[in-house]
């Protein structure tokens, strides 16, 4: 079985690199992206199963990125990476089509569960 393709979009390099590596150790085809501007091109090229998306990034509207992903391919599942206190944005993301959200700091067990759920729901 092909490993699940996960794309991590988060400007926090240290966080995103570590998390993506942990996911790879768990046999996910995980890739981290630190610039939201590159996100759409990569998504179109790689067509990931699940995108872990930080909605609060400098210089870019996360919600717009989310909308663009859903417009490109509605089957790509987006899980929002939310900082504490950003629940409003997370809720808004859910409204425009995100699958779920997780709160940072992220519990690896919780995120794997949610990725699996997202994949199943495709």
């Amino acid at each position, binding site marked *: 079985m092909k490993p699940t393709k996960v794309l991590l979009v988060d400007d926090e390099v240290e966080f995103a690199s570590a998390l993506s590596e942990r996911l790879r150790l768990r046999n996910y085809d995980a890739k981290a992206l630190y610039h939201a501007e590159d996100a759409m091109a990569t998504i179109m090229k790689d067509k990931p199963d699940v995108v872990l998306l930080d909605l609060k990034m400098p210089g870019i509207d996360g919600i717009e990125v989310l909308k663009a992903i859903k417009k490109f391919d509605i089957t790509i599942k987006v899980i929002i990476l939310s*900082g*504490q*206190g950003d*629940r409003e944005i997370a809720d808004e993301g859910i409204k425009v089509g995100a699958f779920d959200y997780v709160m*940072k700091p992220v519990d690896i067990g919780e995120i794997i569960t949610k990725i699996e759920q997202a994949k199943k729901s495709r």
Partner: protein
Amino acid sequence: MIKKLASFLKGLFHPHDYFSILSRDRYKSLKIRIVLIDAMLSLLPLFIVVTISYFWFQHILKEDFRNQVKWQIENTTQSIEFFIDEKVSALRFLASSYTFEQLSDQKMLTDIFRKFEKEFPGLVDLGVIDSNGIQQSYAGPYPLTGKDYSNQEWFNEVVVRNVYVSDVFMGYRRLPHFAIAVKKDCPENRTFCIIRATIDMKTLKRFASNINLRENDDAFVINHDGILQTPSQFHGNVLERFSLPSLPSLQGGSVLDIKEPGGGRAIFGYEPIENSPWILVSIIKSTPYSRIPKIFRNELLLIGIGSVLIGVAVTFLMAQTVVNRIKKADQETEDAMAKAEQASKLASIGRLAAGVAHEINNPLAIINEKAGLVKDLLELSGDVKDKEKLLALINGIFDSVNRCSTITHRLLGFARRMEATHEVLDLNDIVKEVIGFLEKEILFRNIRLELNLAEGLPKIESDKGQLQQVFLNIINNAVDAIEEGGLIEVSTRVKDKNTVLVSIRDTGSGIPKDKLKSIFEPFYTTKEKGEGTGLGLFISYGIIKKLGGIVLVESEVNKGTTFTVELPISAEAV
């Protein structure tokens, strides 16, 4: 003296200059000031009126008495004038009724004298003197026939003036007396004669003593040279000089106030007696009018003291009331200021805390992932030295991350703009539910629980979940604060038509006064390290504030603490 008074008065109106020295308690000084100003304002006019009345009354009485004295002097003067007129008329009648020859007849003159003596008391003798000044005939007790009066002053006077009343003198008789002489013209032999009557000074004295005299008073007659014509009680005997320093010129009659040589004051009344060389004098030292004011004064004093006592009492009560009200108003303002200050302080602390939490959250996420990665790698690698220990250490990092995460989660969750839901709720039900959560612990700790939930409490529009969180928090704190066997009393009641309240009272250790103001601040906790985040009351306070209510706390060390949560009945008020 005036300067002192001025600075005192200034002090009344500018208390900081004067009364701050007297009293450190500004309310006490305010009270003193109000009492003094009020007493001054109300009692000063009273004093002025009483004083003026007193002196006016005294003045009127004195004036009245002076008028009495004047009236008496005038009356007596008139009596003396009438007496003299009568004598002059009688002598004139004699002169016109009899010829010189008839009057020169000793026997005839004696007859006339006898008749006159009966009619005129005080008449000493009667004589007829010819134009050469020789007494031709004489009727009286002394042998004075043939006496030559031509050199005497009165003889010359009567020749010029036709009628003459003499001063009192001793004369040949060595007894004080005065003479009345009338000139009779005899045109037939171109000559004249004089009819002369002498009258005892005692007659004049009797008139003077008719004046109503009291002890220390004096009334007598003097001539225009100030020689006493009748004896006086205090101012010399007859024919002595009457002396009174700074005597006014005795023209016309008057009643004056004078200073006696002894220093006392007296009323000095005098009136010239017409057709005579005399002045009637009365010196009144007694002051009968001063006795009446004494009664008046006592009454005034009684009324005055009564008014002062009542005035001071009323002023004092008034000042007390005013000062108490000011004190209460100040206290309320102070409380309101303290509350407002606390609210704004908590709000800014809240914002700060949320900002800090947000900034910490990202590094926290990185620590979490890095530690996780280390753990993953460790687990995947084969035998590594101290592998188990390293894994335990990483788990320690996870525990700490979780603890931090709990705090940031709560802080940010609270700081988040909360869309409070507004359902219609029964406050009593919420309290019962919260008690339900804690029942086991309460039973276990052997804590007595009293519920005094008001029946028919109006339903409120509020957020159930958030209220539960608040009550849970406060009751939980109460449970922690009390020893076994302590009491927690939860009661609900209506405060006013817009507000209901829940009060949670415990008989626990209480909160010291200096710590009471900090309990709503974040991270303030008295619990053991690691047991509480110190955010419970901070968040409760924020929640209740957002719901339009207020949290109040009262506490006494070793007696217990009462938290009161006031909530609006209608959400519209929020």
